[in-house]
């Protein structure tokens, strides 16, 4: 479970500071997979990074219960001079997982073959995404933050991602950002709609999607 208590967050842009959250108090329940919905640039990724703890709110507090992943889908977590396997070992070390076990799991999931032992600087963006996804799946978390991951890879990789999410859902929760309603319907049952600095929780995903559609209409 994750609780936001009077959280304010602004983001610097060229046209001054943009409001992402305006004194928001909200609760992500511990027993539901929640879709985070909002228009482009509303701050969905910022919200995920804040929940993960890699950026901090300007005001207010975030209470986290359980072990929370970094926002999955980030391709910028690798150091280009290190190989895929070395990067995976680094992640295993910081999250106290067994390094060789980690490399095995990542090799099986990312399906990069011999490229796993090439510097990630030479990877295509699709390969990086596969590696990033495989790394996050190999570490056990209570909550996985998922940011637009399913946009990458070929059909067979997407299939593997979806299967992995379903398996995870048995023991862990997902908080997911995606522009694909189909994806959200496949994995989430509830919704958090981010609109003009406010967060509204919807018990049913469909209600959230409908509210979002209405928001977009009356621009």
């Amino acid at each position, binding site marked *: 479970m994750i609780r936001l208590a009077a959280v304010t967050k602004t983001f610097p842009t060229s046209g001054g500071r943009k409001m992402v959250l305006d004194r928001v108090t909200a609760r992500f329940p511990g027993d539901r997979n929640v879709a985070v919905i909002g228009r482009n640039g509303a701050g969905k990724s910022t919200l995920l990074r804040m929940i993960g703890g*890699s950026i901090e709110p300007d005001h207010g507090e975030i209470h986290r219960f*359980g072990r929370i992943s970094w926002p999955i889908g980030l391709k910028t*977590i690798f150091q280009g*001079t*290190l190989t895929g396997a070395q990067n995976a070992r680094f992640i295993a070390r910081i999250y106290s997982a067994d390094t060789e076990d980690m490399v095995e799991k990542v090799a099986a999931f990312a399906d990069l073959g011999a490229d796993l032992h090439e510097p990630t600087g030479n990877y295509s963006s699709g390969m990086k995404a596969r590696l990033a996804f495989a790394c996050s799946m190999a570490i056990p978390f209570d909550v996985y933050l998922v940011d637009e991951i399913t946009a990458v890879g070929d059909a067979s990789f997407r299939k593997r991602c979806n299967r992995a999410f379903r398996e995870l859902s048995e023991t862990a929760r997902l908080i997911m950002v995606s522009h694909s309603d189909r994806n959200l319907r496949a994995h989430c049952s509830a919704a958090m709609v981010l609109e003009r600095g406010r967060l509204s929780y919807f018990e049913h995903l469909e209600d959230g999607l409908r509210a979002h559609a209405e928001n977009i209409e009356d621009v």
Partner: protein
Amino acid sequence: MRRKPTISDQLRVLFALMVREMTSRYGRTAGGFVWAFLEPLGTVLLLSLVFSQIARHPPLGSNYPVFFASGYMAFHIYMDIARSVSLAARTNRTLLSFPIVTVLDTIIARFLLQLITNITTFSIIMTLIIVTQDASVGIDLTQVFMAIAIAALLGLGVGAMNNALFALSPSYERVFGIVNRPLFLISGVFFLYEHLPAGAQALVIWNPLIHLTAIMRRGFYPYYEAAWVQPMIVALFGLGCLLLGILLTRAMRPRLLEQ
């Protein structure tokens, strides 16, 4: 339950950061470490070569390489640590996406790695020079350790402060680069404080690095007294920079993460 990072979490992160930096810097080619060692050695030899053409004897003792190595290495340990630590947050910015990795972790990991590297290169270079030059020097290890400790503390303090200040102001970063270069000339690598005119003495005494090089020289020239040296004050200055750096890093945390 909210899971706060424990000491063992932090130690694990430090270890992982150090392994990572070592693999990316020294792992791919043997060249990485060799350069860390050749750069100061080359500087010392070049200085010795040039200055021995100008005067027969160095200001202390009779051997140029020992004179320059004792002064330059002390300066080098400080400068190398300060430079590397200054960029810790920026170089490791992508890693800060992992919530478990903090800016302070990247600073400490870089510091430890640089300290270990520098102690190793220092020991090799001093041994090499003393053995090949057949110089009979009496070594005062207390002074040598004190010089290394003060160089490390100054480097860490200045580096920690720069992490925050570089992010705050790009012009400060440029000024720091400009000020740092001539520092080499006024830190007692080429000369002794005692041989300066009184007016110059009154100025350079404010440079913490001239105390540093003098302490290292005391380690290799036991008869060199340098009674004017203030190790405590210089150490306190380093400590002050470090504390200020930690405070600034905390205050600047959002900025460091989002830059």
